[in-house]
């Protein structure tokens, strides 16, 4: 088994996608291994049934363990490197996506306090900027129009109750 502490196969551009699959297989293996005690703890057993409610989740976990282990070994045999440091470099290489997720989480959290309309009217222009759109005034107009259409369509036509501002109003 070859261990590498330095990031491997991380390049900008199209090669950005090339990674050692073994890293992910190991993560999945560890996740499945951690799920075994979790399954025993968080699945209520039930008397009087031929097959316990535990059976199917455990089967899925063991299948995940076995397949990821086979895939890990196969990957190593095929000459892929095993670089645990790839996890951290991977996080750094995908910081844009993680920032996007963070914005998304803030948006949903904010929606609970300031309501759908206000949160969306603030967040959509921010996202337009984040995705590279630089015409500020047009961006604001597009955001306002789009949010208004979505709000009217879902709240008036489909009768969905969006979160509203805690202080009242929309």
């Amino acid at each position, binding site marked *: 088994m070859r261990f590498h502490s330095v990031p491997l196969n991380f390049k900008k551009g199209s090669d*950005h*996608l090339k*990674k050692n*699959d073994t890293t*992910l*297989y190991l993560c*999945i293996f560890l996740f*499945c291994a951690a799920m075994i005690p*979790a*399954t025993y703890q*968080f*699945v*209520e*057993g*039930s008397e009087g*049934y*031929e*097959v316990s*409610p535990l059976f*199917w*989740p455990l*089967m*899925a*976990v063991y*299948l*995940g363990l076995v*397949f990821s282990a*086979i*895939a890990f070994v196969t990957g190593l045999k*095929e000459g892929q490197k095993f670089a645990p440091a790839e996890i951290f470099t991977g996080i750094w290489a*995908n910081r*844009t*996506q993680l920032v*996007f*997720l963070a914005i*998304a*989480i803030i*948006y*949903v959290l904010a929606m*609970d306090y300031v309501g*759908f309309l206000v949160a*969306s009217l603030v967040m*959509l222009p921010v*996202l*337009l900027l*984040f*995705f*590279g*759109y630089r015409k500020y005034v047009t*961006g604001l107009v*597009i955001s306002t129009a*789009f*949010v208004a259409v*979505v709000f009217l369509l*879902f709240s008036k*036509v*489909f009768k*969905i*109750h*969006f979160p509203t501002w805690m202080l009242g109003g929309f």
Partner: protein
Amino acid sequence: MEALQAVLSNITFQNVLFLVGGAFAGIIGGALPGISPSMTIALLLPMSLYLPPSYAIMTLIGAYQGAMYGGSISAILINTPGTASAAATAFDGYQMANNGKAGKALGMALTASCTGGLISSVILILLAKTLANLSIQFGPAEYFGIMVLALTLIAGVCGDSMLKGLVAAALGLLAATVGQDPVSGTDRLTFGIFDLFDGFTMLSVFIGVFALSELMMQLRAGGKVLNEPTQLLNVSSDRITFREYWSQKWNILISGIIGTFVGVLPGVGGSTASFLAYAEAKRRSKYPEKFGTGIIDGVAAAESANNGVCGGALVPMLALGIPGDVVTAILVGAFIAHGLKPGPLLFSQHINDVYMIYVSLILSCVAVLILGMIFLPLFVRIVKIRKSILFPCVFILCIVGTYSVRSNLFDCFMMFAFGLLGYVLRCYKFQLAPFIIAFVLGPEAELNFRLALRISGNNYMTFLEKPICATLLALTLVSVYFFAFRSRKQKKSA
């Protein structure tokens, strides 16, 4: 016949309007690079939940047909297929557009798509009932066997690595176990979180895995690229003539049939169908050397097969309840949400709805044809929308769509989690189909497995004692061996 008459009498102006609306949205979704048919259907699904079942079916079927056609518009005009299955269309379509024949290429794509869709609809009507009649004799053990076989086939066919497919399928099965136990009703893997008692909502999984992960993938290109205006070739005023269309009748017919039968096979999908039909058209052609230089035959073959997949993929879905690809997996979720459980019982309990699906498929081909003829200039303009505007708007739709199912913001966080998972899997070139199909089939497979055991008095040999089930499980083993052997051979030759 009475049921058919009942369905025909139920076709009103309103539900046809929803079908046209679905087809319109589907064409736009398919035409926009980065918005796949599965993403289009996943985004339309929340809205369809608020419609009566017949309206919802028509909307989604219309969107399915529309999205499969829509991919050809961007393939022809900007050499960027809106859908993976339109990749073969780009070979000759883009060359035709370069040669100043974009109008003819778009016209042929439209007519061939609609004809291919009609051919597959007819085959669906002929095949589905027969298959359903056969499968009505199946018990829980046989269903379990079919589901295991389908999952293995999908994991094997999708992508270049069967192991990746199997790992993804295992994760999908695990995700499906969260919530209540289907037999005893006890909690499983809810971690004490009340919002997980009903499991992960299908929409948070669908939208996260398909839409959000796609937005994250697109971010890899960077803001500059996403904000670049799309360079379009001019759409010439020349239109396809009936003579040109008629000259391709056999090509379209054969390609439509190829598309349909490829669609029936689980996991194979539209891109394989269109490439197969393209290769077959080239093989039969008197001038094969001209393929790829911009001839109408290539567009006709690829597009007819591409839309032929729609009807084909619905055959196992309607008759057996087995989704053949991701779009039909989402459709299964939609049908279940509307109280229609795909499978043989659908034909005995909801025959009117089955006829409604048939009629929807046929009408959607007509709707796509008419919409294509009238609104083509509009669709061409839509292709020009910058991704930097499109994707933030899609993100808002993802949030609203996910939230609208239970009016619960927790589902949005679940959607983010599945978006991250989908993104990681995509980065490592995992196919998402095995994950999604395992997630959709998981509860059914478990239920059938446990019912079979209960009926047999906890006798595990029941799966081997029943000849159909034993055959299906044997086929599963054979397919695992075949895919593993093929994978090893491919790697050796690479």
